[in-house]
């Protein structure tokens, strides 16, 4: 069973046409002693059986339906309208290839152009590509862009940038001449957590190619970026802004308006459930001067021979299939279907819808913090925040989270020890418009019970 339609009679006729006796004769170029190994793969399962098997695997995972969840940390459970998945299941979308033949791919191309436009509108930038793999590699590519542009070795990156994004950036730059400098951007003061941009400002110098900050940052805080942006400007460094949750852009000032040169982020939450972290989609938007340095695909608007409006992949000389070793990146396959989902969600929610879910997320998080405070929890975050905040867990975040799950039946948040060891008594709690009052009650009562 291989989904191959041909019958033995078909095969026989085709072998005759090819002029060989058997299929084995087609594999003669393979060194004979390595030919036809036995694969240790279990026998075929028909649909019904394979679905049962995967359902059994799925049943061994906890979902947000089975336990109230306050997990965020870069992946948020947001409202995705029902029409989105019904579109994504359309064969014309999901079984198409990259639109290299534009005449047969105007649907994908126009959707890409609309995606790019929506990203520009949300971020306040001039140019968006059609996506990179995820938020993390988008940041890595932004850093590489700045390095190529400025030819300066240093990168100043706030420790309040998503730790996985920082790691991926480190991997991407590991073989290159890049000096990644992670700078503390938040300080602990007893049980509280406050922003401190001073170390960032001081770290920027004339060898800095770019400075990376996140908004809302990984700790949930929304911090005035002006001092960092000014310092960068002063030293000729570029400013890269990571967007913590794309929904925050329904409410927060556009990074473009705050001085960003490049804006990156993760768009998964606009397209579907978290899917254990992927496929997501990396947003990548820049100012117009940088357009020819952008990695990945870009759709452009043009006309056909009859002057009819049409769309096409453009500026392809940036890309690997034309430019090979001089390409802006090696990326080929991107995350098109996820961006299509995000495009449809943004279109369906529209201006008011996005603003409302942003506002509801903000309300949910602040009410959750109140509910926790009411049962005696210490809210550590001492700064403005959007939909995520830190709570102090004197016995350590890991231990407390474990008890909250086992004894309280809630996934209360993420251990901030992943940002820096000294934060390992802080729990990052996220809420969105899908957080219910029952969820918050469950969290508060679990907290009270595990005190």
């Amino acid at each position, binding site marked *: *069973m*291989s989904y191959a339609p041909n019958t033995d009679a078909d095969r026989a006729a085709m072998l005759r*046409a*090819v002029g060989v006796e058997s299929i084995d004769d087609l594999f003669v170029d393979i*060194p004979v002693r390595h030919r036809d*190994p036995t*694969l240790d793969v279990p*026998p075929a399962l*028909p649909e019904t059986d394979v*679905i049962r098997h*995967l359902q059994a695997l*799925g049943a061994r*995972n906890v979902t947000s339906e089975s336990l109230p*969840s306050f997990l965020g940390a870069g992946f948020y459970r947001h*409202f995705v309208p029902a029409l989105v998945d019904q*579109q994504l299941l359309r064969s014309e*979308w*999901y079984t198409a*290839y990259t639109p290299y033949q*534009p005449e*047969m791919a105007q649907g994908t191309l126009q*959707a*890409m*152009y609309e995606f790019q*436009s929506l990203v520009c*509108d949300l971020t306040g930038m001039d140019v968006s590509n*059609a996506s990179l*793999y*995820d938020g*993390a*590699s988008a940041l890595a590519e932004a850093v590489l862009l700045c390095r190529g542009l400025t030819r300066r070795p240093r990168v100043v990156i706030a420790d309040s940038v998503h730790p996985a994004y920082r*790691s991926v950036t480190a991997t991407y730059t590991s*073989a290159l*001449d890049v000096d990644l400098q992670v700078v503390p951007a938040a300080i602990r003061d007893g049980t509280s957590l406050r922003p401190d941009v001073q170390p960032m400002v001081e770290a920027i110098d004339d060898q800095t190619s770019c400075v990376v900050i996140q908004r809302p940052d990984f700790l949930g805080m929304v911090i*005035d970026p002006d001092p960092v942006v000014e310092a960068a400007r002063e030293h000729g460094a570029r400013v890269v802004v990571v967007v913590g949750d794309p929904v925050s852009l*329904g409410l927060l*000032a556009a990074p473009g308006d705050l001085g960003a040169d490049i804006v990156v982020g*993760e768009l998964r939450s606009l397209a579907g459930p978290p*899917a254990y*972290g*992927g496929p997501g989609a990396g947003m990548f938007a820049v100012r117009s001067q940088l*357009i020819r340095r952008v990695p990945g*695909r*870009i759709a452009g*608007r*043009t006309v*056909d021979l009859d002057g009819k409006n049409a769309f*096409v992949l453009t*500026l392809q000389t940036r890309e690997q299939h034309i430019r090979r070793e001089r390409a802006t990146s090696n990326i080929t*396959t*991107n995350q098109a279907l996820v961006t299509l989902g995000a495009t449809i969600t943004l279109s369906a*929610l*529209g201006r008011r819808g996005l603003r*409302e879910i942003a506002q*509801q997320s*903000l309300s949910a998080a602040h009410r959750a913090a109140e509910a926790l405070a009411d049962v005696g929890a210490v809210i550590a975050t001492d700064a*403005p925040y959007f939909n995520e905040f830190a709570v102090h867990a004197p016995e350590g975040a890991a231990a407390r989270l474990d008890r909250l799950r086992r004894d309280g039946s809630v996934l209360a948040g*993420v251990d901030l020890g992943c940002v820096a060891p000294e934060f390992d008594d802080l729990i990052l709690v996220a809420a969105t*418009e899908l957080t219910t009052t029952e969820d*918050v009650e469950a969290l508060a009562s679990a907290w009270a019970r595990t005190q």
Partner: protein
Amino acid sequence: MTDEPLIYDLSSAGRRGVRPPLPQFEPVDPSTVLPASELRSELPLPEASEIDVMRHFLRLSHKNHSVDTDMYPLGSCTMKYNPKVNEVTARIPGLADIHPSQPTETAQGALELIFELEALLAAITGFPAVSTQPAAGSQGELCGLLSILAWHESRGETRTQVLVPDSAHGTNPATGTMSGLEVISLPTADDGGIDLQNLEESLGPGVAAIMLTLPSTLGLFERRILEVIELVHAAGAQVYCDGANMNAMLGRVRPADLGIDVMHLNLHKTFSTPHGGGGPGAGALAVQAHLEPFLPEPRVVRNGDAFALAGSSATSIGRVHSHLGNFGNLVRAYTYIRSLGAEGLREAADDAVLNANYLRASLSDDYDLPYDRICMHEVVLAGTRQRRLGVRTLDIAKRLIDYGIHPPTIYFPIIVDEALMIEPTETESRESLDNFIDVMRRIAREAESEPDKLHDAPVNAPVRRLDEVTANRRPNVRRVPESGD
């Protein structure tokens, strides 16, 4: 087909789309918790109704060709059928609605799936270790080269060059650059294989690796593969295999058995996960034991009956993904492998190779065949005979569109003049191939007698040929907001 307006053009001030959930909480006024300077005043998104959004994207979808519409013989892309059961399993709530940060104790099924998938890919390729973290083939390549560099480094060596045959996919040299290496191009021998003498000459002490494609982008299995590998290893370099063409080898050869050191797989090619109009994919990396310590972290490990994520390792090249890769596609690829079993996998390779050879045999009278020998899963023709009639491969491709078939990959590999790179895959039936052959022959006749039909093509598509020059010169890559928006 009529023009479809932009989604912005379907917007009308004050129009509502889909409603957000009812507020669950007493609203918090943003201006009471965030400084005014942090809030935006304008949000220039469209305001369209739900029905208009639905219709818009439906009508756009009608302008696409897809595997489910008809044959899609793009060489190097393995546009096989995307099984519908994969879309069911990827949507099982316990596999879709799980958060990357949830404790591993609450994600045992997901970790087991990754662990088992890596084991299956190891069994299929022969490599002892696999990482499914890379999000696509190109990222797999980056991981592969970084692993090789780390290995050299672990042995105290610094090597700075990578050899890449001139027939390679563009991402190979691009990855070389991203890995900080100097890319040295290797010319292809007359038989389409690697020129051993040239290889030997190129294999200096600075060479970290060679990047081979197997079967090559010419659709040919490297007959001198064992010699090539021996030479490379003798020079202290590593053999990287671009495994985008694994579909030809399933159950017929395990690349690791040949001595290859590291290889990436495109799960979105060989293992049927859909291309989605450009992505997402999933690009597993498979390595020999000596390279395992360098695989991306974190790795999924088994402890008795439980699965866990191994902590940070000193040797790993590090993370390449925010989480564990494109998990949704890992579910699909796992579903596919379990659906086919060992026999089905081999059958897939067999039919893929037979289909390509059938096209080769059937079309070689009408088109030039630069390498006239048994091919693997794809066949590369050349439109050189037609060029003499004033017709280019581009014209042939566009004319195919008029017949409702997606053109093959064209002008690649770049070493073949007027290349037409055709990969039918195993999921096309004989009737479908016969239709393709018939159309290709008709086009060959048209090239002789009615070349303008080809020059003017397509005429049966949603649009005619596009002005790409202006698109590049004066890029219009977003809708420009109108004032007052």
